[in-house]
């Protein structure tokens, strides 16, 4: 076992890991941050997306030791300081961007990464960026609406299909 230390949602944390311990296992099982989900474990679904040094990555496809000394952000770090939902989270709620909610942590983290790179994406850009996040419930349309709303764009512009 090896000791790793990293910053998770602004706090310095450390724990003992094996070489094969994935970042998602460290987050869920060692830190008990179970908001990050494992949907497939084959790097296809994006439910496990977190930010490592500001970049969206699949935490099921990264060893915990690769994130040593990194700055990690998970869904638990997304709400506002007073505990209210962030703009992105609120938009998902307002626009019915979730049903069962299983994919939502990854969707929110990918959306945050998208809007950091591209604050006013087009609908096509949103759909392209979220290609690695699968949702079995919503049919995506309301997720796209939520992302566009979170970016502060006029919802009336978006044609209802």
């Amino acid at each position, binding site marked *: 076992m090896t000791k790793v230390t990293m910053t998770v949602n602004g706090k310095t944390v450390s724990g003992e890991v094996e070489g094969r311990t*994935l970042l998602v296992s460290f987050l869920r099982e060692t830190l008990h941050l179970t908001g990050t989900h494992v949907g497939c474990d084959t*790097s296809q679904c994006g439910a496990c997306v977190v930010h490592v040094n500001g970049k969206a990555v699949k935490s099921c496809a*990264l060893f915990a030791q690769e994130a040593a000394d990194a700055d990690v952000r998970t869904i638990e770090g997304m709400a506002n300081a007073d505990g209210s939902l962030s703009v992105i989270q609120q938009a998902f709620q307002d626009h019915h961007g979730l049903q069962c909610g299983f994919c939502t942590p990854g969707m929110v983290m990918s959306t945050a990464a998208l809007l950091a790179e591209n604050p006013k994406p087009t609908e096509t850009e949103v759909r392209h960026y979220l290609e690695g996040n699968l949702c079995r419930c919503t049919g995506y349309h309301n997720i796209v609406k939520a992302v566009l709303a979170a970016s502060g764009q006029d919802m009336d512009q978006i044609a209802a299909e």
Partner: protein
Amino acid sequence: MYSFDFLRPTTLAEAAEALARDEALALGGGQTLIPTLKQRLASPSVLVSLGAIAEMKGICRNDAGQICIGGGTTHATVAAELAESYPAMAALAGQIGDPAVRNRGTIGGSLANNDPAACYPAGVLGSKSLIVTNTREIAVDDFFQGMFTTDLESGEIITEVRVAVPDRANYQKFVQPASRFAMVGVFVAQYSDGVRVAVTGASQDGVFRWTEAEAALSAHFDASALDGLSVAADDLIADLHGSAEYRAHLIKVMTARAVKAA
């Protein structure tokens, strides 16, 4: 996943030494290798991460005007940093998988893996490229040796890929929607002394150059130059996504699109 020792050297020399150990394996971005380890299709005793080796990351231009891409450079970095100097290669990198895959996956890992449906093999074979390792330089035409097989020796590390920038180029990818890999992908590049056409996703032997199309396009760089040509379906991949004949047809269609868009 079986257990293994995990090493994270910070220099190439330390990595090369670690990889000389028995049953040692290099870890690039892990986007292919970690799923493989989970399926227990690989069982290294030591995994040597290349992720902390600064000298393997980043992009520069050498005196000969070639673009030098560090073997540990991510797809996202290539997509962003080559946007002006080699837009076709940047666009190829920007179409690999999804953003999270592009933030981790590396050019060295993609080339070493030589997946028959991967994008980089087409971009690199379709360009005049040189694969640089910790021990030698390999001409790109000698590098790919069939599906999941390359000229690399065990423990050899791709440290850099050197690419000559063509006058114009384009990559056309027909996406297999479930995996997001290429069902067929064609990279076309026109240099002053000829055209290169590299095809991925289609052949049971992995990436290949379509030499008839290269000759026709070198004589006349226009999609109409492909009119009389066809690709034999004999050695092409056939699976539930498409027959060999379908892929043969797609190769010509995607080549024509790449020529028009170049």
